[in-house]
């Protein structure tokens, strides 16, 4: 006799359900491509949104736009029934603040002074 699938499906739906973050990049940085020597900062900003961080090198006359791959998970909130008709809410922090750190970069776009894309660096791939 086959076991009923309903509890399994229900559990899967609960685990997979809910909403996705909407504050991430507008497109997936791992799949989007731009044309070196042609794509401008405006195009990159329009496709991905603004970068997590912008730095400049006056000596090299370059500007670096760094993107995370997704928003940082800073904490989780959950509610646990603690009695008849009562629910207690718990919150735990991951220790992340969401503040951009150099090692968070999934991709870095390098622009020249005119704002034209010169190079694309994927730090994770360079390790």
């Amino acid at each position: 006799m086959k076991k009923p699938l309903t509890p399994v499906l229900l559990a899967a739906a609960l685990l997979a359900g809910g909403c996705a973050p909407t504050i991430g990049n507008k497109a997936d940085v791992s799949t989007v491509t731009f044309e070196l020597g042609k794509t401008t900062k405006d195009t990159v900003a329009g496709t991905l949104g603004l970068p997590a961080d912008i730095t400049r090198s006056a000596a090299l006359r370059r500007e670096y736009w760094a993107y995370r791959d997704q928003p940082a998970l800073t904490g989780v909130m959950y509610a646990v029934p603690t009695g008849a008709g009562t629910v207690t809410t718990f919150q735990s922090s991951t220790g992340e603040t969401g503040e951009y750190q150099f090692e968070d970069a999934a991709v870095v776009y390098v622009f020249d002074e005119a704002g034209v894309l010169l190079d694309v660096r994927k730090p994770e791939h360079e390790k």
Partner: protein
Amino acid sequence: MIRTLIVLGALLGLAGCAGNPPMQQDAAEGLRAGTVAVAFAYPEKRIQYDELVYKVLWNEMRSSTASFDGIWDIDGDLSDQFARQFRVEGLRAVPLGEVLDGATYAQFTDTMSAYHPRMEGAKLSVSEAVRAALLDKDIDYLIAMRAANLHVQAFSLGVNPHATLSYQMNVIDLKRNEIVYATHMFLATSPEVGKSAREIEDNGLAKLRAGLSESLRLSFEKDVVPKQLGMVAASQ
């Protein structure tokens, strides 16, 4: 429901600002009689996004940042608008950038970068070169506003994001080299978006800029800033 709570929260926040003691009357009279340079500074040029993401059995808290350095001159825009609004209130106000030369203005921005109003014991002190340059141009007061954070709270349930730009306002009597008034204030807006809070970045942050500009205008129209600076009676 959530929208109502957000609006209520914003109103309570504004009420909180109005609860700060206003500038002393004698200091306010001095400000009204003098010439004033106005500067707004947000050296970080960054949006901090936070979102509570509904996950059925739990909620996740997610955060990200977006830099608009070189994309939006928030310092220039808000310095200009504050100066205009102060002029409407009768102050002889001019944006700081119109008074100082480039090198001296850069000194001032360095000072503002190093000044973090949220840090305990933080106190703004402009350099002697900046003070001397302003006095040389017959400027008596500097209203220096330092933004602490541009925060956007996003919601994953189809509610518009809520943006808050909090700032510390310091009024400096340049002749006495003394802060005669300091208060914490904020601008707030809830731009309409479709699916993502990050739509506020579209078209050079057009929606965010318009919303914050409107909030600034309202903070004068509703007498929030004028009351704090003793330009109108606090009881009105």
